[in-house]
């Protein structure tokens, strides 16, 4: 499934969050949105599961306008990983992972959840009956990832999924995520602060600033031919600060 935004604008009150944004993520590809806080990355991401309904413009998933069908049905087909996992604290790990299959009334939801848990590197026997607050931060994000793909979603929206993790967990999860993408081939939109993470996981990077997309390209191209002074300065800062290529 492809993702597409056409001339999307959105405002919260009189603060403009998105200004005439257009972008396309072809089927099976991964696009990373980078930029500073408040640039509109998360707002744009949330347009694709209708958690935000833009003031104007068109948002398409798999070629169809998202407003043409029920938000609930759409969301069950779109995987979502928020920054802090957003796991339901009163449900076990297994039940959390089985959430969407259960909502879709799949008969083998529990078995599917078990399998998916294995896929993200957690033993269902050891972790299935635990509650989220009995897990480490990295384990929680693995569960969140499993929950987002358990129903074989073709689209994955990830909002700073590893932003709150320590460096080692982060590297592990980035590797895991890359592997899963290979396996599932889900079309992915990734919001991140981290240019190197974006480069590692995504096919292309979209640099956002103040509700607009400044440039969409691979990291090499962004470095070699920055379209605007802002892109150039952002990359200079990011690369000087990071210095290390994530996991390569």
């Amino acid at each position: 499934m492809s993702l597409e935004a056409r001339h999307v604008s959105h405002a919260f009150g009189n603060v403009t969050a998105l200004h005439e944004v257009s972008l396309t993520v072809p089927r099976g590809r991964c696009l990373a949105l980078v930029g500073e806080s408040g640039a509109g990355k998360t707002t744009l991401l949330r347009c694709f599961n209708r958690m935000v309904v833009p003031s104007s413009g068109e948002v398409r998933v798999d070629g169809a306008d998202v407003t043409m069908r029920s938000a609930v049905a759409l969301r069950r087909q779109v995987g979502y990983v928020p920054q802090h996992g957003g796991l339901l604290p009163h449900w076990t790990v297994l039940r959390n992972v089985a959430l969407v299959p259960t909502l879709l009334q799949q008969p083998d939801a529990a078995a599917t959840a078990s399998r998916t848990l294995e896929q993200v590197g957690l033993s269902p026997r050891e972790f299935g009956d635990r509650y989220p607050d009995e897990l480490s931060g990295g384990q929680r994000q693995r569960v969140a990832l499993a929950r987002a793909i358990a129903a074989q979603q073709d689209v994955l929206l990830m909002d700073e999924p590893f932003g709150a993790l320590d460096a080692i967990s982060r590297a592990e999860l980035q590797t895991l995520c890359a592997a899963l993408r290979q396996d599932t081939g889900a079309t992915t939109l990734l919001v991140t602060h981290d240019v190197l993470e974006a480069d590692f996981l995504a096919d292309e990077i979209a640099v956002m600033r103040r509700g607009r997309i400044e440039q969409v390209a691979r990291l090499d191209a962004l470095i070699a031919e920055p379209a605007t002074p802002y892109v150039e300065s952002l990359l200079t800062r990011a690369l000087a600060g990071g210095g290390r290529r994530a996991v390569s």
Partner: protein
Amino acid sequence: MIRALAHRALLALLATAVLLSHVVRAQPDTAPIVVASKPFGESYVLAEMLAVLLENNGIPVKRLPGLGTTEILFEAIRSGDVDVYPEYTGTGLIAILKETLTDHALADPRQVFAHVSQSFAARYGVRWLPPFGFENTFALAVRSDTAARHNLRTLSDLARESARLTGGFTPDFIQRPDGLAGLVRAYGDGIRPGTIRPLLPALKYQALAEGAVDVIDGYSTDGLLARYSLVVLEDDRRFFPPYEAAALLGTRAAGRADVVSALSLLSGRLSESTMRALNRRLEVDREDVHRVAVSALEAAGLGATPAASSREQGQVAIAASGESIGAYFWMRRDALLQLTLRHLGLVAVALLLAVVVAVPLGLLLERAQRAAGATLGMLGVIQTIPSIALLAFMVPFVGVGVVPALVALFAYALYPIARATFSGVRDANPAAIEAAEALGMTPRQRLLKVRLPLAAPVIMAGVRTSAVITVGATTLAAFIGAGGLGEPIVTGLALADARMVLFGAIPAAALAVVVDAALALIEKRVKPAHLRR
């Protein structure tokens, strides 16, 4: 075997007979006559005498002893919730009609009665029967040593000396136009004691005897005047109007010839000394009010046929003095159980209704947060009304008895539950709720499977708070005739009987603890799984 069968057949026959007699008696016009009283000894005795008189004449009676103040009772008799209660002509004149008469007319009890009974009939359709035969006027009393030291015999004497004395007056007396304010008008500002302490009726005699105060207000027939050998100061300027006691009849009772003729038997039959003796038996000797009433009727030649003197109520029996408190409780364990069950019933119904209304309301407010502040604020205001005031407030709208009590208790219980539901649901793990929405849970699923379970501990805390408040507030329901553990508290306060007060207060306190503990168990069950470990 045969004996057992015969025994059973006999029982069945008896039961049928009882049933039949009930059916026969349940004619439309024989709904029980509701007899009420104010919460002080004399009113209890008079009401009980009226009730017994009716029963002796085969008229079924429902008793609401100590139902409430003048305002509540009069409202109840106008609305038909109460049919009969003893009232005083002076109170009718000043507190109800809010009138006064010329000094000349005031001096004559017959003129006052004529004026009051005509005005009541014309204005309210409420009928005064001819007075019982005694007056129970306001009186100011001092200890005999105070009287001797300050040379006090009349209220004029008191006006001379009052600045050096401490007054212990009931709030009622301090407020009423025929109380302190009127006295000041009649005797000058000097009559106002240098210090005034507001005291409950039940406490003032003891306070006077112990020297905590020097002057108290009382009634001329108080049984306690004699007990503490007090000096009643003469109203030498005849300020207080006559307070002749008489039966007040609502429309339904006044329209029934059998009721009127039965109750009229008591007119003119009680002298002031008789009444004072009866009050003394009740308030000082702690005799049972029913026994006092029956023997007084016998003494007046109005005695019952033995069969007719059965008594249906009697939840609160008055103690013979000298029992230990343990024995007191034990002897009344059946009554205690009944009062407790009644209390618990009131609490349960009020609380259940409050949960049913306040939880959805809290959820609704969380959806419409703009309305939340105002709505919760309004419920909070209800919470700040003293419960006794709230109960009294209900009377004109819904009358007396169980329904207004439930309405008031319900209104009282709403706020903590609505508030807890509102904030519990609002503050419950926003990240989890957001994710649940983004992954395709419907609003209903989010509410039932995520929001409510996560908010459950907070909501239950609100319910527990409400429950404990309601157990306490329900003791006040007795003031408007709804029964429960407040009944002995109200009666005990009226009769200055500490043991009787404790008979209601201790179980009520225990009940609050038990109810809270029971709800704690429920809370444990609704606690989300991850918090149970």
